[in-house]
């Protein structure tokens, strides 16, 4: 009975992976097979999906990178302010970063459209009219709105790194006569570089798959690959072409992710092996030393 219970528990531990296999991997495989067989639906020989992909991917990546960069800069600055002020400041900033997440993604984009349209017309407030016009239906607007969407992720990741920062190097630097500016550039910024890099990569990966913000804020003038998929599917009903474009988008995201994961895994493995070598060497030295003494 106990063995049976152990078997059930050890099998149930695979529950998440099995769920992912059933609901994620199987549909993907079926989709790829149907795409290869050409049975996925309507196809138009006149549509060059690869050309469409190349025309969209540049803009997609450029705007995603710009938005991710803006998010990392603003998120890092906010996190730095959070840990350099009072606890109340940090709580307020954290609340400000959390509440919009609960309001709905499309609704937030709608709010930006409404807000920018509101001020793009006549307004007595200085700069607001020109600022709104510079953002609405422009690339800059897409970058700003996507940036605000990614900022909370960057904020939380950088804040995590900062709260774990030891004050010892800061105190040591100050004792040795370093100025506050030197401490900031030489100690604080390098300490959070890792989390900034992770936040940037996460934001870029998420941004590449977006299509709502470019459609709403860009007004359809600046299309991402995702918008291309929707246009092919909804407007022209070309399921196969849309699937192919979707597959290219999938590979654009997942191949770098997979390669990065593999590189991290190999690096960790190499480090582990080196540590193991050092330990074995130490052990052999420890066993050799008494023998020599004898």
């Amino acid at each position, binding site marked *: 009975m106990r063995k049976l219970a152990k078997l059930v528990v050890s099998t149930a531990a695979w529950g998440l992976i099995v769920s992912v296999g059933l609901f994620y991997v199987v*549909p993907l495989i079926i989709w790829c097979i149907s795409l290869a067989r050409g049975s996925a639906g309507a196809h138009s020989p006149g549509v060059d999906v690869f050309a469409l992909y190349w025309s969209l991917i540049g803009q997609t990546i450029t705007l995603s990178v710009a938005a991710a960069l803006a998010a990392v800069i603003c998120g890092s600055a906010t996190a730095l302010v959070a840990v350099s002020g009072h606890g109340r400041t940090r709580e307020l900033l954290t609340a400000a970063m959390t509440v919009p997440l609960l*309001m709905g993604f499309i609704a937030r984009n709608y709010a930006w459209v409404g807000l920018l349209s509101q001020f*793009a017309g006549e307004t007595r407030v200085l700069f607001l009219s020109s600022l709104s016009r510079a953002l609405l239906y422009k690339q800059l607007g897409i970058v700003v709105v996507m940036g605000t969407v990614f900022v909370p992720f960057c904020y939380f990741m950088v804040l995590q790194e900062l709260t774990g920062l030891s004050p010892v190097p800061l105190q040591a630097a100050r004792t040795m006569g370093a100025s506050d500016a030197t401490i900031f550039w030489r100690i604080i910024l390098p300490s959070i570089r890792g989390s900034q890099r992770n936040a940037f990569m996460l934001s870029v990966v998420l941004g590449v798959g977006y299509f709502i913000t470019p459609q709403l804020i860009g007004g359809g003038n600046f299309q991402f690959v995702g918008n291309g998929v929707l246009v092919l599917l909804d407007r022209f009903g070309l399921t196969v072409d849309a699937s192919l474009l979707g597959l290219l988008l999938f590979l654009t995201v997942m191949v770098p992710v997979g390669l990065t994961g593999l590189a991290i895994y190999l690096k960790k493995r190499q480090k582990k092996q080196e540590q193991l070598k050092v330990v074995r060497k130490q052990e052999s030295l420890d066993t050799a030393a008494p023998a020599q003494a004898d």
Partner: protein
Amino acid sequence: MCENRNRSTRPPRPKLISLMTRTAHAKPEVLKGYLDPRIQVVLRALSALTVLAIAVPACYMLIWSTWGTEVVGRLRSLHEWSLDWIAILLRNPEWRASILRSVMLGVGASFVGAAINAAYNYCRRFSGEYVKNATYYTMIVLLLNPLIAYGMAVRSVGSMLGWSPWLLLYFGHLLVVLPLQYLVFEAGAGAVQDDTLYAARTCGAGHAGTLVHIYLPKMRGAFLTAFVLGFFVSFDEVVIALFVLDKSASTVPVRLWRGLSEVVKPEAAVVSTLLLCTIGFIFMVRHFASGKARFFSISIAERVRRQAVEVAISVGAGILVGVLPLPLGSLEHFVTDLFVVPVMYFALNTVRARSPIWQLIAVANVEKPELAGIPQEFAFSSVESDIEAAEFLRQGRWIDLSSQALRSLVQACFAKCNGPYFGTDRNVPSRFCELYPNYLKTQLERNETVGDVRILFCERAALLADQASNEATVLRFVKDQTAAGVLLLRVGDAIALREANNCHLHSGEFGVFGGRYVLFFHRPEAAEFTASVMLVPVTKLLASHLSDFWRNCILNSEKISASDDKLAFLPLEAQVELTTRFEETLRIK
């Protein structure tokens, strides 16, 4: 134990959710004093810009739902606000159907996702490292997966197998919420130590018993958080739904997206406002649910009276807010009271419950002894504060207090102290009077001060030196207490601190108010605070430690008195009686 207990390094804990849940306890002010002023100005400017960019659209959305028109970017004038858009949306059967579908999908997918994650999180404690690593990396991949491609895949499977689009959408949503809920469970995994589960198994509990009686009660918070997060993510999910659903049926976000080709109405803002109201409702339910546990512990009349006072304050504030803009608008402003009243009610409670000093005073006055382990006679007017107080009390945190806050706390403590007061302090009298100018006054204003004892942790030389420099203050300090019947003693601070350490006390400086709870004092780290305090109930263990400490101090103490305007140090008699009285006050059987 027969289970696999591989305790080697686990995959790194996911950072985002972990921080969001731990943020209240995280160490603040890491960089305080280390940022260059010029850099600080730049950072603050960027930070303000960021918060504005996030907060302004959110606020605009709320405004849009009441002042919005059919023309995007055009609002009505201030006095023309109405709830028409909310009414239109809620009266529309298609919208109602969409909301119902989204809610059902959200609840179903989120609950099942949370259950799968809970089961995994339990079972992984008894599994090998490879399962954990494999699951971790799978979840990361799933998190980064572009949903457009997955949406296409689900659509393809649906058309091939002929399954219902709602079933496909359900599986899709389940997959979207799984990795996020996984992060929540990983972040909350610390609530149940592996050893606790192993101990239960060793003691003979089956897996089902361990899961139901030990794991789930402790992981209830993580489960609820995962459910709520999953619900909102599922409710907001649009990508898969766009690919799977046809135009005849849709969820709320799909309806919003497809409405783009028509006129941009304030419907999105209304939905968002409704979402926020839902969140408010969840908090309200939680608020009352936490009160319900104590509903039968007080009389209904008393409960009604307390609630009536608070509601009356909220209604008054709400009507005031509603009436103020009346000259600008119409009677419709009274409708705002419907919103303002609950907002004011919860704002008042939140402000009061969150403030440390209110928490402490609530602890001092808390009425529910079965929750906090402190006496019935400490009554307070707020049920919610009692619960906050009880929770606060269990945590036993140090809190920095200003002199004003400390005075309020001490007044509350002495006001409800129905027994002798036993206190210790390591400050010389002049410093004591400087730090706590009203402490003695509050103590001595009580009716029964005979039997109070105060021990000063000072060397004789320090007291004499203090008398030499602040003669009037020191003599008044001693004479006032002696005249009121307070026994004033002295122990060397080295002895006292060593004994406090040996007896595992939070601090050697404390006050025992009536023998039921102890207020520990500590020197604050920041200069702007007067003291750092911790209030804890007297448990049997603490009473034993306090008793040991008190006994050792009494054995090494001497009595302070003032005769002929000079301090005198006399040997203490009746040491045993004094120790016994202290122990009786703590009610040690």
